[in-house]
């Protein structure tokens, strides 16, 4: 599939592959538009949003209110529900025809399935899960920055010879684009010829999350327990603190391996990488594999009886002490605070 030499001058414009969730524009799409416009301004090119779907023209038109130059709406019955092969082929054909310089996705389930396939089909480079996107002022190339090696390394990649330059962006890092009454762009509807449907993968049904409380990746507050709990019932106390704060329960791998808690709760390099506002580590030593899953937390609190535990080197606030004394005291203090808040309510 190797293309003969790519003429990179033929490629222009910044594309954002948008997503509708139950018919609504997804938040990450608006964040991508904001980033896309910044990049396009630096390059003096247009920002174009691409949406794939069926029967959503009205909703798609609203995207023009976010200051984009054009919306390309790929519409086909087969594309009403997401399917990997159909979406990949639809976007692929349009890219081959229109030749965008940059193609951006949100780092969502959909993008994880189709962005790598698209890059392979187009014989170009992809950097997923970026935390920053910029233009190299010297030569106009896209600089794609992400974390690597479990958070230990910040890497910037380029795609110097192939086009388009592709990337997925982690949600909630950039602000959404501003809404504007005035519009200047337009919607162009693309009706692709019959596409290959993912006939081999049939959608049967959606299974709702059984336990919403294990969505660690999006949690704002996480309270985690480790081997320092000493016994499985320790997680009752951890859950109590989590409930008091409206947070969810995490765990170290040692606690998971001890069989004290389900592996869905595991935080770290081989568990979930988390980025809450508040992370409270109780009885966790702070092994490198655990640390690398929590680096991006805004505030890390460590409770450990060993003053030399490595977790104290990366926390914002540390308490040396027995977690079985400290946690109940914390719960009591939080309850007091909340009580005071309600008491002051007129």
């Amino acid at each position, binding site marked *: 599939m190797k293309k003969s030499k790519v003429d990179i001058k033929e490629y222009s414009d910044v594309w954002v592959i948008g997503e509708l969730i139950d018919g609504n524009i997804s938040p990450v799409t608006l964040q991508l538009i904001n980033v896309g416009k910044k990049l396009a301004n630096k390059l003096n090119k247009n920002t174009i949003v691409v949406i794939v779907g069926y029967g959503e023209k009205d909703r798609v038109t609203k995207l023009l209110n976010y200051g984009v130059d054009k919306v390309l709406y790929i519409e086909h019955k087969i594309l009403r529900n997401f399917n*990997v*092969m159909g979406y990949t082929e639809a976007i692929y054909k349009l890219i081959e025809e229109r030749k965008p310089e940059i193609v951006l996705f949100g780092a*969502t*389930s959909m993008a*994880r*399935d189709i962005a*790598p*396939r698209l*890059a*392979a089909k187009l*014989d170009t*480079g*992809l*950097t*997923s*899960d970026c935390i920053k996107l910029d233009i190299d002022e010297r030569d106009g190339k896209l*600089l794609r920055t992400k*974390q*690597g*090696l*479990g958070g*230990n*390394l*910040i*890497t*910037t*990649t*380029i*795609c110097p*010879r192939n086009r388009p330059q592709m990337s997925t962006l982690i949600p909630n890092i950039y602000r959404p684009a501003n809404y504007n009454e005035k519009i200047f762009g337009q919607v162009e509807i693309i009706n692709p010829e019959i596409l290959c449907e993912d006939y*081999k*993968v*049939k*959608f*049967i*049904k*959606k*299974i*709702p999350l059984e336990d919403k409380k294990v969505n660690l*990746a*999006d949690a704002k507050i996480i309270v985690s327990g480790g081997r320092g709990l000493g016994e499985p019932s320790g997680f009752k106390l951890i859950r109590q603190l989590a409930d008091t*704060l409206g947070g969810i329960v995490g765990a170290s791998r040692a606690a998971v391996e001890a069989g004290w808690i389900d592996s869905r709760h*595991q935080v770290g*390099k*081989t568990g979930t990488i988390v980025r809450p506002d*508040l992370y409270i580590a109780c009885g966790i030593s702070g092994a490198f594999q655990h640390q690398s899953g929590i680096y991006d937390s805004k*505030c890390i*609190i*460590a409770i450990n009886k060993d003053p030399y535990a490595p977790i104290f*080197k990366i*926390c914002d*606030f540390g*308490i*040396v002490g*027995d977690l079985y004394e*400290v946690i109940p*005291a*914390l719960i*009591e*203090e939080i309850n007091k605070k909340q009580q005071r808040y309600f008491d002051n309510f007129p």
Partner: protein
Amino acid sequence: MRRIIVCIKQVPETDKIGIKQEKGTLIRENIENIMNPYDKNALEEALIIKDKFDAEVIVITMGPPQAVDVLKEAISMGADEGVLINDEAFSGSDTLATSKVLAAAINKIADYSIIFCGQKAIDGGTAQVGPQIAELLNLPQVTNVKDIKIKGNKLEIVKATEDGAYLLETETPILLTTTTEINNPRSPTMMGINKAYGENGNKRISILSGKDLNINPKEVGLEGSPTNIYDFCMSKKSKTSEMIEGNKAKEKASILINKLSELNYI
């Protein structure tokens, strides 16, 4: 279910990993290498199917000669054969170049029902290789699989996503990537260890080079990779940790909660 191919990557363990200044590729010398932990779930799922349906499990890895270790480990866990894909020309490959090599090897092995990949590698960690192999082989894929039931020649698959799971029905051949929830990987058995490291152990391993796979060296490795590393830095956060001092747990708790409340965290 005839033949199941599992892609396994050898990855460096510990945090001593660095990057070669001149080339922007990883330094892997003097670092202990292990089987990518996520690939153990992929292998386990293949072995579960093997146990039930008597399928053949072939594990493949692209890497330096010492990557044969992960193949042997996989055989000691129950895999039948291992294929090491090794060539100087492959070093510095990005995900697309890696996927081209793996896809070529899979094509050569042929006759597969399922190709398994792990969720991601703990070093590069792009999770791009699975879907790219599927694209290059023109196969359907399901990523992040957390349950598989085999019913005749149909597979019932549960796929995990951010907002719940999806129940899907598929046929083979297909490429699947597994999550860590799907199973608990088994340990090597005595019989397996004999099979892998015993007298005839090496007979279970074959080695393929770029030439064996008809790969144009210009399409792989550093030169053939569309993505290049441009810049990197270590991201050690230089945090100043504040230790909460106080006499009793109660006092410390009160100081901490006040601080968190001032900072609007609670």
